[in-house]
């Protein structure tokens, strides 16, 4: 049954790295809250801060960036670049009185299904508390 009080979380996954891990979480039946929605992009350092702000404006409780980390097929600079865009977005969130804790990022490799599920469960709990 749908848990009405679950937080709505938007996940930006990456097509080659973190999205396969999220798929595998499903394959392995590692359950996580069903209000977690994923949009896959090519690389986590391609996410525009305006997309994240748009998600909050539209009613998402949290945004999670399932980043490529050091596994990014496009190069080593991904980790630093994703970190910068998260930092910039946190600043923009503060300006708009949105709690920066509602945006989280973690590196999720292509086999990190369990890690993804743990993040989703803990992020859901944290967001529920903050509601």
């Amino acid at each position: 049954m749908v848990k009405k009080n679950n937080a709505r979380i938007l996940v930006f996954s990456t097509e080659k790295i973190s999205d396969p891990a999220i798929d595998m979480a499903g394959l392995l039946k590692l359950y996580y809250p069903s209000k977690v929605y994923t949009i896959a992009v090519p690389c986590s350092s391609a996410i525009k801060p305006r997309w994240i702000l748009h998600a909050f404006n539209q009613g998402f409780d949290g945004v999670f960036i399932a980043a490529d980390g050091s596994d990014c097929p496009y190069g080593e600079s991904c980790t630093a670049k994703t970190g910068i865009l998260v930092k910039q977005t946190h600043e923009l969130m503060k300006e708009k009185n949105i709690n920066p804790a509602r945006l989280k990022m973690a590196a999720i490799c292509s086999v990190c299904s369990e890690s993804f599920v743990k993040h989703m469960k803990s992020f859901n709990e944290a967001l529920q508390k903050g509601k």
Partner: protein
Amino acid sequence: MSKKIGVYICRCGCNISDYVDVEKVRASAEKEADVVLAKTMVFACADSSQKEIINDIQNGVINSFVIASCSPKLHLPTFQAVAERAGLNKYEYVHANIREQASWAHSDDKEGATAKAVQLVRAAIAKVRFATAIEPIEIQTQQAVLVIGAGVAGMKAATSLAKMGVKVYLIEKEHFIGGRVAQWDVLCLTEETGKDLVTRFYNDVVMDKDITLFTGAELIESSGSKGNFKVKIKITPRYIKDFCEKEKMRRAIEVCPVEVIDDFNFSITKRKAIYHNFPSQYPLVAVIDMKNCTRCGKCEKECDKIDFSQKEKIIEIDVGSILVATGFDPYTPRKGEFGYEEYDNVITLPQFKRLVAINDKELKWNGRQVKTIAYIYCVGSRQLEGENKYCSRYCCSTTICAAIKAGEKFHDLSHFHFTRGIRTYGKQEMFFYEASKQGQVFLQSFEDEPPRVMRKNDRTIVCINDILTNRREIEVDADLVVLVTGMVPRSHGRISEILKLPRGRDRFFNEIHMKLRPVETVIDGVTIAGACQGPQNVVEAINSALSAAIKSYSFVSRDTLQVEPIVAEIDAGLCTWCGACAKACPFDAVTQINLEGKEIASVNMTVCKGCGMCLPVCPVNAIQLKTFSDDEVEKMIGVLAQEL
């Protein structure tokens, strides 16, 4: 042209429809603007369903469509091909993953899974409204393949690829080729030995000028993607030059004072620090195990080809595809598991096979003659608890085959098989028939009441409540207890980590789909073959190697490879050239140009990889990534946020 969207919702047999109310999803999709039809299908990927979609397109009913089914990693190419066959640009189709990310991920919450599937389909519809026709980009491919592992699967794949005209780099971590098969004596189904088979494959490898074999070679780094991988290989030297005289080498080995456990014989014998596993093993040159060598210098006095000055090398290779065939490890029982490492006459199946191979006149273990052998099956496979729940497939056949061969080599042996039901599938059933005819005894127990191994008066007794004789308790006084151990994934090496290859629940490498894409992985351009993928016998490993070779060939067979035209686009009106995008691009795809007197950024479409790193750094939002435009992403976000 106005959008006429078709939505096809797959039941995936019952994989989706058992947990997601697909009719509810269909009804919701039908209400969306621009949607002209919404259908459910038993299998959207089935030929009949594909034809139905093609008819809908060709009859002008729809001009874009959404497939809601399994992961796009599995069937995106299938439905892109459907679009193309119908004369529609493949980017007029959008995929919604309602299996891995809805029905399976939330099978504990059917209502939640259905609500999520509804939203995912609505988001896909929102995206397809913006879809436009775009043409693919061609890239130059490296017409070479890296094959990792020179066991039978790797060697067969390498020769198969070379015959198709592809340059092959075959690397083997060990200093000798052949993998596990080199360790086996007579193989099931054919009368040849593992050594014979490996020799035959090795000859094919070395005779082919398009194959370069590196032994003692390990993958340490990989970058790039399908069509263009750059890999680094570390090569450990043998410390012995080529063309070493046999007699000199024999003496060099003889005088070596160091003795260590011999892994080739699964620890039942010892070897020297300078060694080869058997005299005719390929490559014929021995190797010095530097971890154990004391540099005493005795071998150098016997053989002038010893060369301690050889250094480790790192080479870089460009390849278009990588084929992984790294094989398996035999399961190692825990201490005390059926008496293993507690009683001195309890050994594993691989140890028994080597014991039979290296003994000549009499079968002896620890100096004592062996007459009665008890085989305990499914050790490390079909376990009730833990990760090894799978059947290792090869063990029943290989054990019975080994028992028959041992009986032919050493007379008056008695064999007692403590099984959980024999699985000698296919032609291998003949071994079971033959063994039964010879009088070998087969006993059986259920998984919850396995045989027990105990000591009585300095003898090792195996006891079973045999379900074939109405649970009668039967005891066998065994000279040797053989634990029929299954296959587990290779524990060493960083290949999984370097190539980012996912592993399944059984911890073997995972294919995309065991029936539809059985040798492909989610890492584009990387294929898998043989027992690294799951338990396989020699025949099955070779079949999968041939299949993986064909698939790898498909990535490198042409000079160019079509890649997705997902590239960045600059809005010349907005761009004021600040250079941030050029700085962010890791591929130097962005340059500064002058357009009608205005300095702006320009993207080289053939160099751009579509990573999108340039997008967030633009201060005036002048860059859009094809199929990931602000309109598309923000509409999807809006739809996902507003639950019905």
